[in-house]
């Protein structure tokens, strides 16, 4: 018999209790891992390094209000601005309303320059880009989206509009690969197609995405653009891309505080449950602990064995919880990644795994130490009731 076998057998003395406590640990670690990863994913949305020199110009009253496309001319005149891309959320679906993904009508002439990191422009050929620019009914799609739907270049994608009364039939002209999976779940088509199909959109656009030459020019640009259109019929709200994304995340409420609150509640609850379970398990073994010590096991050795049981228990529970969270993350990426692109980046990162396992092991040590220490400090003769 080895020490690990002794620890394992002691742990499995009450299989039902062990399975129940492992089950609650699995559930707790799973919940914490998923929630913390959600927070990490949302934070990444609002902290995209590629967007450090990009701005979003939209109507001050909200996203449903349009801006004149003529504003583009003023924006282009600003010396700090490298390029401007008109962009409109189309909100169409492919074949089935449940088959929803992000799709935009965008200015085909400037989109590759504005979002060059996201489209991996360095890896695209000029011929590929030209193919798209030449075909007014063409579209570009991310590799993940194309893979999910089995699309390839040349395929026709009929989109059914939900906001706008048109159903464009788009031919895939380019499939791009992006460093981030979330950026590969998007489809863009020519803005002209929207303008021509929807008369009320003639000369209007939902937003301009502006790329500045340098990040340090951004504050100055924001102030100048909004001041220029102040008190006009179409007042603007200019903000950094990260601030724009943050506004979306904030629609969910103070999600960070909610997640941290739930995490704290779960940690406290599992600490109490584990502590109570370990205390009961150790109390039931009072005589056995005394017998071990009578046989020559020192108090510190018995304490180590009991702590090892607690650590093994939470180690198993924590590992299974993390494993389950990883499986769930894969499922979330597959099912929600297309509809909500930031979910395509949803993953249980090593830092989250480390934090969860450290926390679980900390709970195991803390929950076991107090009853174990008390048990090993109890006089042997008290434990050996038969002798006492």
């Amino acid at each position, binding site marked *: *018999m080895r020490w690990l076998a002794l620890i394992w057998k002691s742990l499995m003395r009450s299989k039902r209790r062990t399975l129940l406590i492992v089950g609650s640990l699995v559930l707790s670690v799973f919940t914490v891992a998923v929630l913390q990863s959600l927070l990490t994913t949302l934070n990444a949305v609002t902290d995209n390094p590629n967007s450090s020199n990009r701005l979003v110009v939209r109507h001050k009253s909200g996203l449903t209000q349009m801006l004149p496309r003529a504003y583009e001319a003023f924006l282009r005149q600003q010396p700090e601005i490298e390029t401007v891309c008109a962009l409109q959320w189309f909100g169409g679906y492919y074949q089935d309303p449940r088959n929803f993904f992000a799709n935009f009508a965008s200015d085909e002439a400037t989109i590759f320059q504005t979002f060059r990191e996201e489209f991996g422009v360095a890896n695209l050929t000029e011929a590929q880009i030209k193919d798209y620019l030449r075909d007014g009914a063409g579209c570009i799609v991310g590799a993940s989206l194309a893979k999910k739907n089995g699309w390839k270049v040349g395929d026709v994608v009929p989109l059914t509009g939900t906001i706008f009364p048109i159903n464009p039939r788009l031919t895939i002209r380019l499939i791009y690969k992006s460093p981030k999976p979330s950026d590969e779940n998007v489809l863009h088509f020519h803005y002209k197609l929207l303008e021509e199909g929807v008369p009320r959109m003639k000369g209007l656009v939902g937003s301009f995405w502006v790329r500045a030459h340098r990040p340090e020019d951004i504050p100055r640009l924001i102030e100048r653009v909004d001041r220029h259109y102040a008190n006009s019929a179409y007042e603007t709200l200019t903000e950094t891309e990260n601030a724009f994304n943050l506004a979306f995340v904030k629609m969910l409420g103070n999600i960070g505080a909610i997640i941290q609150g739930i995490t704290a509640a779960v940690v406290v609850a599992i600490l109490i449950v584990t502590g109570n379970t370990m205390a009961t398990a150790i109390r039931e073994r009072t005589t056995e602990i005394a017998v071990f010590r009578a046989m020559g096991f*020192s108090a*510190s050795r018995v304490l180590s064995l009991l702590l090892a049981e607690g650590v093994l228990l939470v180690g198993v529970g924590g590992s299974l919880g993390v494993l389950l969270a990883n499986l769930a993350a894969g499922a979330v990426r597959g099912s929600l990644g297309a509809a909500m692109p930031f979910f395509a980046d949803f993953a249980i990162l090593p830092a989250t795994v480390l934090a969860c396992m450290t926390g679980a092991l900390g709970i195991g040590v803390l929950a076991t130490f107090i009853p174990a220490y008390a048990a090993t400090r109890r006089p042997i003769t008290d434990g050996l009731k038969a002798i006492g």
Partner: protein
Amino acid sequence: MNTDRFDLGGGEPIITLRDIAKSYWREELEIPVLQGIDLEIPAGAYIALMGPSGSGKTTLLNLLAGIDRPTGGSLEVCGHELNDLDDDQLAAWRNAHVGFIFQNYNLVPVLNAFENVELPLLITGAGRGERRDRVDQVLQLVNLTDQMFNYPRQLSGGQEQRVAIARAIVTDPDLLVADEPTGALDAKNAEEVLALMERLNRELGKTIVMVTHDPKAAHHARHQIHLEKGVLDRTVEVNR
């Protein structure tokens, strides 16, 4: 039966108690349990500690087994003054020198007979092979080789106590302490266990100190020591 005050025969003492006292405290109240115990037990003795409930026999057994400490006097067992040892040294000393036999066997229910017997060897530094050989030997001695992979719940009371005896002797201790070892057994099993203990004393030379209420069990010992209200009353040499 031959009666003689505290004369347990010749031979080098394995246990020497000098003016041993033990009291318990209940809040401010001191409750003396043992007083002025002077006793020498020679190596190879087989002693039955007897006396009415509350006479201090179990307390005395606990003291000389090193699982309790006296409040006064000196206590030399197996060549060590136990008062000089700290808790960890005392634990190591017990592992090397004392084997325990309990009334309720106190086997670990999740370990089989082999693993229960192996337990005290885990902290001796013995290798796996050595441990296996030792466990095989003692299980053979208690005639339980064919039950070695059975768990305590699969053994009879007598078999459980024999496993407990095997566990007590697996480290080859000089001293065996037994607290009512037959208290939970029927007459037949009790007789088998007592016969086994007698063999351990006679053939292996183990010194045995046994607490018992049972005169039949005490009759297997070579000497009986009677305690009365915390003091030694008399010794009785058992003639068989």
